[in-house]
């Protein structure tokens, strides 16, 4: 009586158990949602989108106040305002003393390898490299790309890869080389990657078109200019000259403008006039896109606007007194290359904004007032700089405000982006502008003994500075700058080209000094200074002199010390050394003399 029931039940259960695995496999297969598989991107459209993705890593940003590494936006700013300009003595960190303390130690060369900012920069740049490698590894799987297009894509990708490696090379010197063939990413940093960078730029030079349908794409001439820069950094002056000669003679921008200096110096720093004939290679910024964020709006510089000002935040990146003093000119309109601090530009340290102040009356290079905001001088069309009221803590970081990346009030609605607690802007960061190419060429020529040719290039730059179009004029109405400017210069400007034969008279060393100084004046606050000082081999003397002078006035750089044979390069981030270790042995070797 009982038995059949057991049997039936057992049989039923057995059937159920038999059936279950069949539905189980299906039941446990869940697809990934909201993402693409490799098959879907290994197409012409997919690879082109990957290429745009590789360009998008140029600004190193990914989200609100976040760089590609996940750290704060400014830690990996492509403008190198921290690693190139603050570290180079162009500027103070600014803000309050303990705001972003990781920059304080970078500014004073006290950083140790554990500094997280360096890790951010490293990771953000390697993300750019990985995007370029991804293009090269996936493109062969996409059958529908025409051969000519394949060439251009590869050339653009390799240009970008070379740029990213150039960033790493000048920051860290010895870094692991990862390319599209790499399968083990735990690579040592024991090989000099200059040849790889050269090869990529050479490939780009050989395979890129002279012009592009979209101005943001790199072209042949940009590649050649960057290749020249690569040679210059290696002191291969003849090879550098060869590139620069062609670029200067025949180069055009991607939108087919013959390379040249724009008349107005300021046009290099205005979204309305960017992608002009001076823009050799620029990172395209965009304001008020559809993201309700400033992630694509030069977010890396979000901190670097005057404080308690129309820009609201955050009072970083304050030009150094030493830098401002450099713009002093003599009676002939020439720079005071040596001992420029002997006749400092008058500033308002210790003077409250409500107390009176009269700006310096001596002769100055007008580029000063496009480079640094100082009390009593028109700050673009935002009004006269009020001094302390716009400075977060003058007693800590000095009296000046940055200016080159700042947007104009008249076009602020269009070119500034206010979707965050600090502004973004559409102003491109120009990695290489033509004035830079001319000065690099001048350097190569001088090293090769062609002082006259070098002076010619320098004078092109100085002549543009001397163009009356570059004078800053006072406002018609100080209370309403919108009414425009008078024809009264805001300061006593006097700048002129070097007289004929001046470089020959100076000799090679003197001419080099003049070129170095010209680069300081022309390219200040553009992220180049530290790297220039290092490749010239004068970082220790220049920066230690800077600390001695500046530190006595502005306390945030007191105690700074550049140690020769150590501080030429940043330390390899400790975190990367840890991550690349196996059984306690790292494949990365720390740069010399870091502990």
């Amino acid at each position, binding site marked *: 009586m009982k038995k059949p029931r057991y049997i039936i039940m057992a049989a*039923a259960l057995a059937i159920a158990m038999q059936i279950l695995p069949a539905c189980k496999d299906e*039941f446990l297969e869940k697809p990934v949602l909201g993402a693409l598989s490799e098959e879907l991107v290994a197409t012409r459209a997919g690879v082109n989108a990957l290429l745009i993705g590789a360009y998008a890593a140029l600004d190193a940003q990914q989200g609100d106040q976040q760089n590609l590494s996940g750290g704060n936006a400014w830690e990996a700013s492509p403008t190198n305002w921290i690693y190139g300009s603050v570290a180079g003595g162009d500027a103070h960190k600014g803000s309050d*003393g303990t705001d972003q303390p990781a920059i304080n130690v970078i500014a004073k060369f006290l950083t140790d390898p554990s500094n997280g900012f360096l890790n951010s920069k490293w990771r953000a740049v390697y993300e750019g490299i990985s995007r370029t490698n991804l293009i090269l590894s996936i493109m062969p799987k996409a059958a529908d790309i025409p051969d000519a297009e394949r060439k251009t894509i590869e050339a653009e990708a390799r240009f970008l890869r070379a740029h990213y490696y150039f960033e790493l090379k000048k920051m860290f010197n010895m870094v692991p080389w990862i390319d599209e063939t790499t399968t083990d990413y735990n690579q040592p940093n024991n090989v000099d990657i200059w040849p790889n960078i050269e090869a990529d730029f050479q490939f780009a030079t050989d395979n890129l078109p002279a012009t592009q349908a979209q101005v943001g794409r790199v072209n042949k001439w940009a590649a050649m200019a960057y290749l020249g820069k690569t040679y210059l950094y290696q002191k291969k002056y003849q090879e550098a000259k060869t590139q620069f000669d062609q670029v200067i003679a025949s180069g055009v921008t991607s939108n087919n403008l013959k390379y040249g200096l724009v008349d107005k110096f300021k046009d290099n720093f205005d979204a309305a006039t960017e992608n002009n004939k001076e823009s050799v290679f620029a990172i395209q*910024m965009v304001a008020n896109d*559809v993201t309700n964020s400033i*992630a*694509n709006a030069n977010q890396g510089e979000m901190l670097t606007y005057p404080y308690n000002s129309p820009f609201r935040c955050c009072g970083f990146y304050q030009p150094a007194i030493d830098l401002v003093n450099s713009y002093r000119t003599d009676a002939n309109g020439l720079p005071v290359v040596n001992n420029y601090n002997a006749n400092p530009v008058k500033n308002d340290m210790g003077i409250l904004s409500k107390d009176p102040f009269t700006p310096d009356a001596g002769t100055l290079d007008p580029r000063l007032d496009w480079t640094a905001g100082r009390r009593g001088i028109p700050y673009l069309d935002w009004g006269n700089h009020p001094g302390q009221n716009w*400075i977060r803590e003058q007693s800590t970081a000095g009296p000046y405000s940055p200016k080159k990346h700042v947007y104009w009030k008249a076009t602020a609605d269009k070119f500034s982006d206010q979707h965050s607690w600090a502004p973004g802007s559409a102003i491109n960061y120009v990695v290489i502008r033509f004035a830079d190419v001319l000065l690099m060429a001048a350097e190569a020529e001088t090293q090769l003994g062609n002082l006259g040719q070098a002076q010619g290039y320098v004078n092109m730059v100085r002549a543009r500075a001397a163009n009356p179009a570059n004078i800053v004029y006072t406002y018609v109405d100080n209370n309403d700058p919108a009414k425009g400017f008078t024809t009264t210069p805001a300061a006593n400007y006097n700048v002129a080209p070097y007289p004929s034969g001046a470089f020959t008279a100076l000799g090679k060393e003197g001419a080099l000094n003049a070129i170095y100084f010209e680069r300081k004046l022309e390219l200040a606050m553009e992220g180049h200074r530290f790297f220039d000082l290092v490749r010239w081999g004068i970082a220790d003397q220049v920066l230690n002199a800077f600390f001695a002078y500046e530190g006595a006035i502005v306390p945030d750089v007191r105690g700074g010390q550049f140690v020769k044979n150590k501080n030429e390069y940043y330390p390899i981030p400790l975190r990367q050394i840890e991550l690349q270790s196996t059984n306690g042995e790292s494949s990365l070797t720390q740069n010399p003399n870091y502990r």
Partner: protein
Amino acid sequence: MKKFTHRWQRKSCLVLMLLAFGGAVPLQAAVTADKATIKPLAWPITGKVTSSAGEPLPGVTVLLKGTSNGTATDANGNYSLSVPENGGTLVFSFIGYTTQEKTFSGPGTVNVTMADDARALEEVVVTGYAVQQKKDLTGSVAVVNVEEMTKQPTAQVTSMLQGRAAGVTVVGNGQPGEAPQIRIRGFNTFGNNNPLYVVDGVPTTNINDLNPNDIANLQVLKDAGSASIYGSRAANGVVIITTRKGKDKIKVQYDGYYGTQRPKTGNVWNLANPTEMAEITRQALTNTAIANGKDPAAISHPQYGTASNWGLPDYLVAGNSFGIKGETPATDPSLYRTNPNYTGGNTELGTFYRIVEANKEGTDWFHEIFRPAPITSHNVAVSGGGDQGSYYFSANYFNQQGALINTYLKRYTVRSNSQFNVNKNIRVGENIGYSATDNPRITAVGGDDPIGYAFRQQPIIPIRDIMGNYAGSFATGLGNSRNPVAAMERRINNKSLGTRLFGNAFAEADIFRDFTLRTSFGGEYYANTDNSFTFPEYENSENNTFNQYTQNASSGYNWTWTNTLAYHKNFNEVHDLRVLVGTEAFDSRGINLGGTTQSYFSFDPNYTTLGTGFGGQTNSSSRSAESLFSLIGRVDYNLKDKYLLGAVIRRDGSSKFGASNRYGVFPAVSAGWRISQEEFMKGISWLADLKIRGGYGIMGNQINITAGNIFTTYGGERRNTYYDIAGTNQNIELGFRKTRIGNPDAKWESNINSNIGLDATLFGGVFDVTVDYYRKQIVDLLFNPELPGTYSTAERPYVNIAEMKNSGIDAAITGHFSATQDLKFDITGTLTTYNNKILKVSNGAQNFDAEGRRFNGSNIIRNMVGESMSSFFGYQIEGFWNNQAEIDAANAQARTAADDANVVYQSDVAVGRFRYTDINGDGLITANDRTVLGSPNPDFSYGLNVAATYRNFDFNIFLYGTQGNEIWNQVKWWTDFYGNFAGVKSKTALYDSWMPERTNATAPILETGGSFSTSSVPNSYYVENGSYLRARNAQLGYTLPANLLSKYGVGRLRVYLQGANLFTITKYSGLDPELNAATTTAFGIDEGNYPNMRQYLIGVNVTF
């Protein structure tokens, strides 16, 4: 075609499963119990059976011992039974009550009060897919006294668990509705350590909306022996909750309380007043000037003026003038211009003319945002039951207003549980709960939240300006905090609504004599939405100028279908065997939606929707899906009530693993020996019961790995991979990158777990003691360690890489004794310890760090091999540099030690700053001298509940404490160092900072700027003893005499007064040592924690 086949397969499998089980049910025939023929006896015995509350108990089985002669009580609890005249023993039994035996010597009346006493060994404990008697348990199971637990006035069951169950660590703060972090026996993973909750048999990860009043019992399964039956979801421990069922006659119960929550009074952060701030500033500027060789007479400050006329300003700001003394043309109120609801963005903001008078008395920002707030709970429950089934229905309204303005938890819950006895062998029923919750909260992060603003905003700033609009830090010299009152008041229109339906339906059939077949289909459906509005700001130094409306929604469902077949047979009172087999399927789907729109014509909350703004619109969404399928088996064997053996096994398949490693098997065995049942133990009179238990097993975990872990994926995101390739300044074009590195080879991690414990009942049941020692080793731990930067920043895969272990002791003691006839005590104590140790993080790095806070570039927390989770890491301070000679000597030594003329002992060194300890002894301070400075993990935590009853009065107090844990008091970073942003500073900074004549100081010298040697790197300055003892709860109740109430139809009426968080004993200098735990791998940092409030309540319990 393929699709069709699959669909058909799936359908067919469901149908067949139904058939398999459904078909079995009709097979059961009416099973008739063997009934011995009862010979009528002449002697009647009668009596009444009542509950301890005095209510009559119907349905109690009354049996003459040793015979099958028995009966049951009637509806009034009365019984009558014929018995032999020479006397004997009556056995009274009823589910949920202790079985009692009464001897009688002849006919007459035997009345019995049944005890539903939880301490009884016969107490029924719900464990994994089974019900066991406590005496038979072989695993480690903490049984919580629900009645005591639910006295805590909070909405969260998880919060209530604090200190109530040995082995369970609960870390939470005072914010209404904020779920605490709950951990069972230390840490099992770097990710989610939340236990699995099983409510009425349905697994879930969320019990935030469970009404505590609905809980009948709660057990915590802690070891493999008890929890492995839940396989891959058991590793973090399992909390088994059963909600209430009806029984007996209809009962209506009301429980309610009302109370007030009181913020801590006084100067909670020891902050300086405006006059003291002026002095702190003067000293800092003077010290800095002197150190830099400058003339201290030349100092100036935008608010306090120059050294010669240093003092508080009368106006903080008037237009473009800051720090004004006296009336000036600039302070003319007619110039004032502010539009608080401006829509013109930065341009319009630039036209404002603010006039703000100084508040020289000082604004007490903490008490401007923290105010006394009410808390209310009303709960009604109706229940009843009988032969045909039972029902339970409840409704709860809970409203806890936050002491922090505009934070609160409002929750409505209803529950319906019912069971129908279809016939003697078939039962069907359901348990279902529904909740609706509105719970605006703040997220406390790193000082950039309203609580942080309150210890950063200068007291000289008033709440409002001369025209009644907000005042703030706008003006140089006032720092960059925001107005905390404004920040909170602007949240007024932020709302949230979360609804959740959770429950199951089940059917149970007893088939044949010994089998029970059960099927349960349960799960949840949830829908959450919240909306917030961001107002433009104008009063701060760093204003947001846009206005923005944000709305998010998430919804989803999951279901669990469980089928089990249980077998139970007792062989001759010698062997007792229980076997259970089953299957369980789990499927989960969810979606998230979010949108923001900017630029609204009006900020009227009735107007703002995602569609009505005219500015930028963004939206986002995501979907998720995952599933599990499991086979279950368990065997419990009991020999002679002395030797106990348990074995469980589960095979889980998860959608999160690739085909090669999809299935995992999780076995466990456990055994118990009731020594006290042995003959040689019978003589020990004080030992009523003693059992030794042990278990070993493996649990799994897959909660942390993401659903897409198998796949390598590509994609784009506007802010990340799009680019303005055409140089338009306004348009970005589509770009892609690799978004995820997949790992198809991930396999199950193993949590290898051993446990040994003993349960003892002492002194005739006065004390019950349970002690357990455990070890857990987690191997193949699924973790997504940071990869070298050379890999790209794509989402990292979870790999079986890490390893950690835990060990510890859980102990619980309960005591019940009477001091006099009327004075009775119940005492429950719990002790929890865990010793967590990380054994492996990755093949490369031996640590990972977290919480940079304002030490940008370096981190406070290091999770490192050899240490426990969330260790504090940095430089050890060994004192101050008291003079230049000390510095010179140290530098000279360092140069010798390093053989390098360029080195200094310590960066940024100066008199009055910290001297760090050279941990590695290499003669100078480098990053290698950072060390573990403390740990937020306590040596032990404990809870002590003392309940006393005296006649109609009852009193209860619950104490909770932790010992041996440290807190990182990051608030001091803001308040004790002048250079760390120009916010308000502490009295410590003024009265106890280093000076040449005050070298025995607490804080370093006052100076502008920060340095490596003071505040720009994590160091031991912030580490404090976090131990505390807190009176979590105290209650004094009075139950009105029953005879007084019966005429009004009231069964029971109790009123009580209650105080929560009445006192705290601690050395911690901050606001509250009880901190919320943001994440598993980074907790114990106080940077503006939502404190627990003292609460005073009055409550009532009524039963009809």
